[in-house]
Each structure stands twice: as C-alpha cells, then as structure tokens.
C-alpha cells in the first residue's frame, strides 16, 4: 500500500471550487426553501380546504421519497415537461428545493401549532383578524421554536448536496470522485473528501447544538 497524498494538494483548487459550490447550493436552496416552507405551512393552516390539501400532499410526497430519486427524476422529467434544457446545477437545485421546502413546511407548521391556543383567542378577542393575529402574535413567537430545527435542516441539506453529484454537478463529492477516477488515488481522495466535509460539517453541527441550547423553550 503506497500512498501519495500529493494528489490532494495538487488538485486543491478544484477541491476548493467544489467545496464552494457545495456551500452555494446550500445557501441558494435555503433562500428558496424557507419562504416556500412558510407559504406551504400557512396554506396548510388556512381555512381553504383546497389549499390545505394541496400543501398537505406536496409535503407528504416529498418527505416520503429518497432525495436521490428526486434528483434523477428531475433530471429526466424537467426538460421533457418544460421543454427547456436545464443545466445540471439548476436541476440539482430544483430537486433540493422541492425536498427541503417540504421539510420546512412541517417545521413551520409544528412551530405555529406549538403556540398556545389562548394566544390566538386573546388576539381575536380584541378584534384582530386571524391573519393579523398570525402575523403579529403567533409567527413572531413561533420563530424561537423554529430556529433550532431550521439549523438542523441546514446541516442535513449541506450533506445532501453530495447527492447531486450523480448528475454531474461539480460540487465537492463529484469533484473528489472525478479526481479519484483520473488519478487512481482511491484511498487518498476518498479520505480527503471525507476530511474536507468533516472540516466544514463539524463546526456546523456544533453550531446547531449551541443554537438548540440557546433557544431551548421551557414551558
């Protein structure tokens, strides 16, 4: 077993680029999936049966499918359905957004529902509409409960970006695996990939722990 770790150093630019793309995918997905999650949650909680059902089924559908399948499915279906050629990056992004929006919808719904019924009643008793009560009283309180879960979802998303490598999006996993194939330095590249993910992921996991402690809700 002769190891040559220089292969990692020699390809550091590509690896860095891959890592940055991983981060970019995470950030862009969250930018879309957080508002989308709020909208889906409000739809689910609205008085309209149609909106609530639509939101419910969207969420159940995407929470009960493997993400890797959604990635493949998006890759083949989107060009046919929408008659445009999307880049692999966009396709991967769409798949990630669909998936994470569904999880966020549940997070926001649970957060809103966790606020005591009496708060809504008190707001309504002084004459507020349900919408006003949601905006001014319920949602501001729900944020505290939602934040730790969003943080944890963020870390999961960060790891899940590795799955879009299967449709050749140039994030970290894809880049590392490519270099492995070209250089035949299997152990070195796979270990380097794991270590780079670890270096990025470990602080994030610890940050999530801190957020959860800080925003712990004691009733």
């Amino acid at each position: 077993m002769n190891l040559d770790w220089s292969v990692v150093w020699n390809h550091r630019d590509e690896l860095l680029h891959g890592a940055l793309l991983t981060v970019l995918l995470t950030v862009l997905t969250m930018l879309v999936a957080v508002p989308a999650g709020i909208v889906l949650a409000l739809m689910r909680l609205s008085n309209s049966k149609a909106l609530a059902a639509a939101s419910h089924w969207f969420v159940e559908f995407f929470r009960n499918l493997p993400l890797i399948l959604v990635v493949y499915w998006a890759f083949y279906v989107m060009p046919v359905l929408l008659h445009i050629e999307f880049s692999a990056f966009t396709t991967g992004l769409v798949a990630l957004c669909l998936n994470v929006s569904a999880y966020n919808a549940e997070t926001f719904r649970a957060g809103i529902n966790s606020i005591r019924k009496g708060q809504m009643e008190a707001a309504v008793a002084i004459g507020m509409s349900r919408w006003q009560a949601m905006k001014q009283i319920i949602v501001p309180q729900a944020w505290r409960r939602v934040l730790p879960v969003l943080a944890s979802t963020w870390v999961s998303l960060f790891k899940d970006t590795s799955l879009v490598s299967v449709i050749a999006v140039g994030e970290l996993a894809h880049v590392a695996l490519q270099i492995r194939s070209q250089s035949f330095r299997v152990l070195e590249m796979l270990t380097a990939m794991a270590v780079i993910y670890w270096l990025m992921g470990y602080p994030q996991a610890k940050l999530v722990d801190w957020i959860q402690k800080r925003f712990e809700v004691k009733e």
Partner: protein
Amino acid sequence: MDFDFSPLLESWQYLLGGLGITLLLSALTALASLVLGTALGLGRVYGPGWLRVPIVFYIDTQRAIPVLVVLVWFYFAVPILTGINFHPFWAALMALTLHIAAYVAEIVRAGIESIRPGQVRAALALGMSRAQIVRKVVLPQALVRMLPAFGSILSITIKDTAIATVIAVPELMKRAETLAGQSYRPIEIFSVVAVIYFIILFPGTRLIDALYKRVAHLGRS
C-alpha cells in the same frame, strides 16, 4: 409526450427483486443500528469519561459527513486498508449501520435526559440501585418517548438505502437506473419507482404515530 410503460411490465420481476433487496437492507440496517446506537447512547450517558469522549467524537463526525461519503469510503477505501473485499450489499450494510447508529445514539441520549431527575430520586428513596433504576424506571419511560424518533429513523434508513446505488448495490434505485438506461424510458420508470417508494414510506410514519398515541401515556411523568 408519449408514454410507454411496457418496459416496466416486462421487467416487473427485476424491479420487485430490487425492492426485496431494499427492504432487506433497510431491515438489517435498522436492526443493527438500533442495537449499536443504543449501546453508544447508553455509553454516552452512563459511561466513564474515557468512553464518552470517543463516542461523542464519533457521533459528531457522523453528523458532519454525508452518507454518500461514508458509503463510498467503506466500499472503495476499506478494501485497500484491510485487503478484504466486501460484496456491495455488506459494505452498504456496514456503512449505513455505522452512520445511522450515531443518530440513534443521539435519540437515546435525548430520551434518557428527558426523564425528570425527580423520578430517579423517588426510585433512590425506595432503595433501588443505579442499575435497577436505569432498567426499570428510566429506560421504559424513555423508550416510549423515543418511539416517534425511531419511526423517522426507519424512514430515513429506507431512503438512505437508495444512495447505495452509487456502490452498485442491486436495490430498487439501482435497478431502476439500469432499466431506465436499457429502455430509454427514464420518466416512466422513475415515476413508477417513486410511487413504489412512496407506498412503502408513507404508511410507516402514520403507523408509528398511531402506535405512539396509544402508548404515550406510559412515558409521561
């Protein structure tokens, strides 16, 4: 847009075989990670310092790296290190177990820590030993509280087996890919496979929720 589902009708046994592998891999992984994860969780809460530190490090590491990375590393790198070649199925089983056990450990820890210290004090006052308290007072209550979280672990396990496709485990996802490649009908194939996954995953969480509602009172103190 014309659809042709005939490849599916011709190769349904092939896909069914893949489903079987998926379910088998999921079941074995769930079981193994439950056992390993519980051991790790208990070690984390009740173990001495020299045991706790590496366990915490291990758990945090698994939380930091993607399943894909663990799978690939296990299948390709471990043979280089150890000289043993694993069949993809066993490599996937080991990798998934090691990864998911970390999450199980965290659930166990959270469940145990959620039991009020007053319960332990009451048991001590009765003269129970620490070991008896853990076995008879803490764990039974904690187990009930952990039920919903275990349910979601099962769901995650099944979804993660689909990632084993990248190391060519012949489970459902891999077979779907193969079939799609051969028949040039990816949309039909992946859509049907999506429905299959949905059917096996969706009732699972409902069942756990219903079960939990019936036994939840046993965990309330």
